[in-house]
Structure formats: structure tokens, C-alpha cells
């Protein structure tokens, strides 16, 4: 396992969260300690071990490709912070 090189400012941008300088400094210290702790996993020999994604031995679950009732438009829009003409409004992405 590589040594922790966490750059909180860079990762916060990947995660699309603004952080204050104080939060960045605090997280840098706190998460640095957490990463030091999880370094212990490098002691484990996993060279012949398959990863577990989840606990059940199932992979894909399919059903017939048939339309089924879902949320009505009104219910689906009820929580949208901005909406117009029966559509969710998104902040402009193209000029």
C-alpha cells in the first residue's frame, strides 16, 4: 500500500464540494490519521485472494423488459428546487 499522499483540496474538487481553508486543514490532519490507521491493511497477504464486492453470491438480477408504473410526474417534480413546464430546471451548462 502506498503511503498516504492525500491532497484534500484536490479531492474536494473531484467530489464537487467547496471547503473552507479551515476545513481543509482540519480534514488533512484527521484523514491523515485515518489513512495511517488503514495502512495496517498492507500487512495482510492478499496475493491469492479474490475481492468481495458484497456478501451475497449473486451477480446480475434481471426481469422482463416491460414498462411498470412508477412515480407520477407531479410526485417526481414535487421536491425539485427549481422547475418549469413540467421539467426540472438545471443551472445553465452552455453559453
Amino acid at each position, binding site marked *: 500500500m502506498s503511503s498516504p499522499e492525500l491532497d484534500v483540496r484536490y479531492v474536494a474538487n473531484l467530489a464537487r464540494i467547496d471547503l473552507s481553508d479551515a476545513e481543509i486543514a482540519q480534514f488533512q490532519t484527521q484523514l491523515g490519521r485515518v489513512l495511517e490507521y488503514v495502512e495496517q491493511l498492507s500487512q*495482510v497477504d492478499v496475493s491469492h485472494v479474490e*475481492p468481495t464486492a458484497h456478501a451475497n453470491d449473486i451477480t446480475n438480477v434481471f426481469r422482463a423488459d416491460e414498462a411498470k408504473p412508477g412515480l407520477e410526474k407531479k410526485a417526481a417534480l414535487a421536491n425539485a428546487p427549481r422547475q418549469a413546464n413540467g421539467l426540472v430546471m438545471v443551472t445553465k451548462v452552455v453559453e
Partner: protein
Amino acid sequence: MEIFDLSVADLQARLRARELSPVDAVNALEERIEAIDPQVQAYLSRDLAAAREEAARADVTLPLGGVPIGIKDVINVLGEPCTAASKILESYRSPYDATVIARLRAAGAVPFGRLNLDEFAMGSSTENSAYQATRNPWDLSRIPGGSSGGSAAAVAAREAFATLGSDTGGSIRQPAALCGCVGLKPTYGRVSRYGLIAFASSLDQIGPFTRTTRDSGLLLNAISGQDPHDSTSLDQPIEDYTALLGRDLKGVRLGIPKEYFVDGMDPQVRANVEAAIKQCESLGAELVEVSLPHTEFAVGVYYIIATAEASANLARFDGVRYGHRADAPKDLLDHYKRTREEGFGSEVKRRIILGTYVLSSGYYDAFYLRAQKVRTLIRQDFTSAFEQCDALVCPTSPDLAFKLGERTDDPLRMYLADIFTIAANLAGICGLSVPCGFGEVDGTKLPIGLQFLGKPFDEARLLQIAHAYEQSTDWHKANPAL
């Protein structure tokens, strides 16, 4: 005895005998909540009129007919708030019922009240709620555990007959232990998560908080079973989880995992758990020492896998379809970044950052993939242990309830509070916590939990074992002086 003192089973008997009506039950809880919740602060909101109306229509002949049940504020109930104790969902109203809610209603139960939690179920003390800090009913200066602290405190304080919570790394069992009630985490795949706000999808399970093991089985009967809306729910035979209750422990082999009795655990916890295990032996159980050799790695694996999954699950909170949206964003990137900065609390941000980091290019193999491989070894530990025994018995939490504020500045120390509960989620097995006595700090009694861990889909047996122990003690009858 007051109405609010009744177990679910006793309440049902009264309802069916027409000595009480479901509306009486709702009213009794409301009165109790008004009297003590200003101190306990378990409830975030409740819709009394809707609950009374539903209670008035309830069919008491159904399995949970007329029984009010409190809901962790992370499970959708049509028309009600579902805040996840986060500012980002402050104004959200659920447009549908979670499957567990639809099933509770089909069984005649009345969802009543929204219970506090650590924001997005991330925490072990319920102090990470954006709204309020729930108190431990046994000592109001102490935490109730978490993340389902409101669900546990409400049952312990007798301001709910039973509640639902969710358990990703111990969030049902640990608060149940610290508040002195019964908390059950079903096997991964046993209960549908449709309508549960997702935290870590390979670990999350919904389960009940109750005052007795029998009530726990009654609630699991109602909520379990495959659901086409959750492809991880499994097609297992429908069982009556109360069917084995009353059988004794003769011939039952209980494994004691030696790694779960560590230096640094509270000596009163250790003493009570050891006495409880002796009690199981005196009831006929055969004790065998077993080893779960990868236990020390469980917390590290968990905080990689759970944060990785959370960082992906919480990407949906983007201020577009629901939830908080930042004012006057200058472009879409600014919209996302300020919406999430303003909406999420500190611990949620911290975990999203960690999860994003362990999944990021260059670190995925070193952290996430390695954690998934160690997870395999942790699962195999349990498979081997269960070849030697029917269930495992151990402490639920290494500590008694701690003081509010004691650990909020030290995330790592807070994470280590889950050391005995996390492995069950990683392995996908079932587990429950049942009261096994009290410690005493500064003259105040604080509950201690005994944890039983069972094989996948062996909840009926797990409840049988816990019931046999519970019925040989009076611990579950003790109530806080509220």
C-alpha cells in the same frame, strides 16, 4: 403499568381483546413524547393527525394490527419528511413508501414519528445530526450511540413501542446496547432497502429496535422477504422468526471469538459479558473458543469500503431533483460545489473526501481493491468459525455510553467504537444485541449489550438463543427513571 410500558406482544393482546384501541396507543405515545422528549430529543418530527387517522382504520387482527412504530428519519414514508438528519434534505417530502413501510402497513402497523440519527447514518453517537443531539435515557449527559440513536433512545425511554433503524457498521446493535434494548441487524439480503437513503450499499440493512426478542421477531416477520425493487434482496423461504422462541439452549454450541475480548475494553463490559456467557452455559449451551483472525483489520476495511460507497451514493445530492440548492450559482460547477458545501455537515464531507480519495486514480488498487480482498478474508473467518458453532457470542460495544462531546474532535477514536459490530456487516451475517446488565459510572447505571452473531439467514435460531438468555434474566425489564 402505563400503556407506553407495554411490549408489542402485550399491546397486541390488549388491542385484540378490545381493552385498548390503536388510537389509545398513539395517544399514549404522544403524551409520553410530549412529557419526556424535550429531554431525550429522539424525535425529529411526527404527524399525529395522520397516525391517529391510520390507527382508527387499523385492523387489529393483522400481525402488527394497530401497533405504532417509529421510523429512523432515513426511511421514506409517503408524504412525510425524510431528512437523514441533514440540512440538504430539510424541505424534502417522501413521494413514496419504502418497501419496509409498505410491509408494515400491510401487517396493520401504523408508522408514527421520525427518529433522529447521525447525518446520513454516519456516526456512532447521533451527535452528527444537523438538528439535535439525542440523549441517552439512562443519563441525559451521555450519547445514545449511533447512528440510529433516536430509534434506540425512543424504545428505551418508552416513547415508542418499537422502531426501525438501519445498520451499516453497527448502527442498530451499538445504540441498542448503549440504551438497553434489543436491536437486530438481519442478514444482508433479508430485508429490502428500497426507500432507505443509501449510505454503503454493500453493507446497509434495515432492522428493528424492540424491548424484547419476541417483539424483534414479530417486526422481522413483517418486514423481511424478497422485493423486486431491491435486486440485492434474496428469495429465501418465508419463516416465522418467533417459531423457535421458548426452546432452551441444550445442544446449542456458542462460539466465543477470542479476538473480541481485547485489552482496553471497559472492565465492566467485560465482566457483564463474561457473566452472561456463563449464564448461557448454565442454561445448557456448549461453549467453544473460536478465532476470527482478521478482526483487527475490520475497522480499516470498513472505513475504506463504506466511505467509497458513500461517496458514490451521495453524488445524487446535487441540488437538481430534490434537496437544498445554492442560491444564484454562476455556473453548474459552482452550483454543485456550493450546494454540497452548504447542505452537508462536517462528518459527511469528511467521509465523502475519504471515499473519493480511495477510489481515485492511482489509489484504487492500494486502498479499495485491497480492502475488498481483506473483506473476503473476514468473511472466510466467519465461515470457518460457524463450522464449529451455531452462533457467536461477544460484547456489542467495547464501551459504556460516553459523554456528549467526548469524542467529536477525534474521528478515528469514534470509528473504533464500532470495532465489534463492523465485521458482521462486512461478512453479511445477522447479529443482534440484547441487554446483559449495567455498568456504573459516577453513581449512574449504564446498560451493557450482549451480541449474538448468526449464520446467514439464521435469524430464527439467533432469536431463539437470545430469547433463552433474555428470559433467564430481568435485564430487559429494567427502565430508565424518566
